[in-house]
């Protein structure tokens, strides 16, 4: 059958995603994470006598630990399905992607299974994160020199 005719039928009958609702939920969850992170940071700075820089690192580590534990306890995936990028974009998404890959391949061997698949999803984030950091560093040097 005619390609364009079929693609039109498919386009007409494929349900549209609830973009507004999805974006609002993601925005809300991202905001809540940021709010809690700020609160933890202030508590650490005021009560534990950490510098702001150290406190930020601690906040990131706490988020990574919690996201990994929640993934292992098998309810974080349901939250990700609901709040989507609100949980995927922050550091929680990075930790979650690594933990979920590790869980999937835990029985496939330490080297060929879990080791090889550990960064299955996070590998792209690392690679392109490092490449963009390199270019942004060059831009920063040009601007400030």
């Amino acid at each position, binding site marked *: 059958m005619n390609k364009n005719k079929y693609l039109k*039928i498919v386009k007409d009958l*494929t349900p549209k*995603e609830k973009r507004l609702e999805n974006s609002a939920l993601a925005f809300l969850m991202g905001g809540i994470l940021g709010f809690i992170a700020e609160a933890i940071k202030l508590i650490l700075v005021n009560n534990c006598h950490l510098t702001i820089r150290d406190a930020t690192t601690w906040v990131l580590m706490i988020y990574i630990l919690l996201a990994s534990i929640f993934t292992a306890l098998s309810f974080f*995936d349901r939250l990700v399905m609901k709040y989507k990028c609100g949980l995927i974009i922050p550091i929680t998404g990075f930790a979650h992607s690594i933990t979920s890959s590790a869980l999937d391949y835990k029985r496939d061997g330490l080297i060929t299974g879990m080791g090889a698949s550990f960064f299955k999803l996070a590998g792209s984030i690392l690679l392109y994160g490092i490449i963009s950091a390199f270019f942004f560093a060059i831009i920063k040097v040009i601007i400030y020199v």
Partner: protein
Amino acid sequence: MFSFKDVYITDYFTIAGPFERKSGIKNCNLYLEDDYYGEKTMEQAEAKMQKTVINNLRDDKTELIVGGDLTNQLTAFALSTRSINIPSMGMYSACATSASSLITLSAFIQSKLIKEGIFITSSHNLAAEKQFRFPVEYGAPKPLRSTSTATAAVGIKLSKTPSKIKIVSATLGKTIDSYIKDAHNMGAVMAIGAVDTLMKHLTTTKTTVKDYNLILTGDLGKVGAEIFKETLKQEHNINIKNHLDAGAEFYPNFEYAGASGTAVQSLLLVTKYIHQKKYKKILFLATGSLHSPVLVNQKNTIPTVTHVLYLEVEK
């Protein structure tokens, strides 16, 4: 088109997973308590499901096992048949594996090469997700058009001994291009193949859709079923009213488009539709989306194939 004179379904055995039981899948022989079925991995659990089905169906006369699943290189089939001690033949046509296996077995029986054989297929939600999509615990957001792989296993025994369910004829479909690159929209991928083989079957048998009590497609899902009906209407001017899609019927009240997987259609056929009095003439359209992660990553359009079986049920 192939005609069969002496091929009958004499027995069947079905297993469904815990989520399927909660979703209201009835009359299965066995329900799993959890996804692991006492095994260490999802793939081994799927193999154990197949093995349980085979062991419940086999007898001294079983000469051949034909079937397949969705795991890489038919891992589950290989594991399930390795200690069965019956000749076996693995097949892969994605979710059309059921029809391609049943047609192959029917041809063996009709040509008197064997007297009795078993068709086996299974799908496991977690094994399929791991292989085709993202890690299980990642919970990657699913679009509304996507389907979810069902956890189930089905075995059907075919024999030349007459029974109430007869396989009358079959049409093997061509593999065609769906023009779709989106692996989430499997309904759209398969609907065009379903229309193609259905028309081929109707033309060669000189029948119309009204000659059948039920036209049962595999796992088009709600979205694919609508596309199937609309394409038939626009392209061939056929208004189909006696159509049901197993994938769309499988999980009622499901947020997404429905169920997919090789076992979905044959499970509903043997646990539900052949027992309903109104369905005496059933056209079984097994639809397969022949995609793989490699094919999708390399931006190919997804090939699809549909095979048709015509069954008559004596009530």
